[in-house]
């Protein structure tokens, strides 16, 4: 201890304190304050950047969820539309089919009717012609037969007997 006190140099202590305190104030002003401020600023910037990145991530997630939902809705809507369209087309086809069938039936019926009509007309025509021919033949036959009175009489009788009313 005595040796320590003996070793103590006041001059060195004086210079050490002077230099150190001088350095302390100088560096506090020139170095430590700007360094610590700069580092703190940088740390805050990083913190902010991280926070905003986190926010962007959650935002992105929300957007993605939204997108998914919209897509799902769109898909459902599309499905509904498709189903509707299918239904409508089936209905249309059926209606068309029915209409076509009705038309065809109508045409067929009309054709049948006209055939019937034509047939009847043809039959009538045939009947008329047959009648005319018959009358002509009969006229000629009669003209031949009716040369004498007796024969005429016989014939009339016979004809009258033969005629059968239909």
């Amino acid at each position: 201890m005595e040796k320590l006190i003996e070793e103590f140099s006041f001059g060195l202590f004086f210079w050490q304190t002077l230099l150190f305190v001088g350095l302390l104030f100088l560096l506090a002003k020139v170095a430590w304050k700007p360094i610590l401020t700069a580092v703190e600023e940088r740390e805050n910037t990083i913190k902010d950047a991280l926070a905003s990145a986190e926010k962007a991530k959650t935002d992105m997630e929300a957007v993605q969820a939204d997108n998914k939902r919209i897509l799902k809705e769109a898909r459902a809507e599309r499905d509904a539309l498709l189903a509707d369209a299918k239904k409508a087309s089936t209905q249309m086809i059926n209606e068309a089919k029915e209409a076509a069938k009705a038309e065809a039936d109508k045409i067929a019926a009309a054709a049948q009717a006209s055939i019937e009509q034509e047939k009847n007309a043809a039959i009538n025509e045939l009947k008329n012609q047959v009648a005319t021919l018959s009358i002509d033949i009969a006229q000629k036959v009669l003209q031949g037969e009716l040369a004498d009175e007796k024969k005429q009489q016989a014939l009339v009788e016979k004809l009258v007997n033969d005629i059968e009313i239909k």
Partner: protein
Amino acid sequence: MNSYTTILQKIQKTTVLFALFFTSFSLANTKEETKSGDLKTEIKEYIAHHLQDAYDFSLFSYTNDKGEHVYIGAPLPIILWDNGLKVFSSSKFHHGESVAEVDGNYYAIYHNKIYKTDANGTISYDDEHHPTNAKPLDFSITKSVVSMMIVVLIMFLLFRNLAQSYQKNGGIATGVGRFFEPIVLYVRDDIARPNIGEKKYKKYMSFLLTVFFFIWFLNILGLTPLGVNVTGNIAVTFGLALLTFLITNLTGTKDYWLHIFDPLGSSMAWYAKVPLYIILIPIEVLGVFIKPFSLLIRLYANMQAGHIVLMSLIGLMFIFKSWLGSPLSFGLAFAISLIEVLVALLQAYIFTMLSALYFGFAAEEHEHH
């Protein structure tokens, strides 16, 4: 950087070895004729001399053919206050070998202190062999002061440069600052913040950072072959610890003083506290002084011890003078010097850490229970 320091250290150690080797060679030549035991005394004296501050900055010395000591280095200014300011070069002392005459006054160096003497440099002693000569107030720029000036300059340039690099480079350090920035942050995040607390740590940061780098750089400088031993000097560590002491007590809160003078608080009736406080308060008050005192002794003793061990191991080489012993003590000296690099950092850390701890005590404000 660490490996870099180690390599540097290695180179420096080799240099110091060579210096010592040549010095002792010439010493050995002259002494061998007298006594063989003198080498040990010589080394002991050399170590004791190295551990002390010096009035000149000598790198090494040798004895020339004429038997004169030749010193390689530079003289430093001597500043004395002895009925007026006396400034002169330390070369006047011729390395303590002669008496310096200034304005009709005579001064001599005895045991590394300047005394006022007569023209012949007579020193008178008292019964306990202490000099009775007058001691002028000594403000000399010694080797330690020069070393501190170098460190102050290095720190100023280094950290001003770091501070400026933030502005130039958009908040990111460049160059050598990149190495020191994490250390600054370490002091802030692992020394100041946990010990002092988030609220108050900022006002102590300047001191903690300055003291950390100041001690560290001086410790490292002490490992160079320049042979300075600044942090192993009691006056320097006393100055540093005194500042810690002053800052602690000047920034002490009400709670801090209450803790010293009323440690038990309202947990006990006053008549019960009185007998306890007769013992407790002196202990607490003593603690206020012991804390910084331990700081100054710890740093001083550690650095001093490191230098003694290292120098002794180097000195051993010249005592062994054998092919086996010398490499062995070289290996040991090398290993110890590696440990000293660690100790240099560790002691700076411990000083800063404990200062922060004491500031934490001073700054504490807790809820009253």
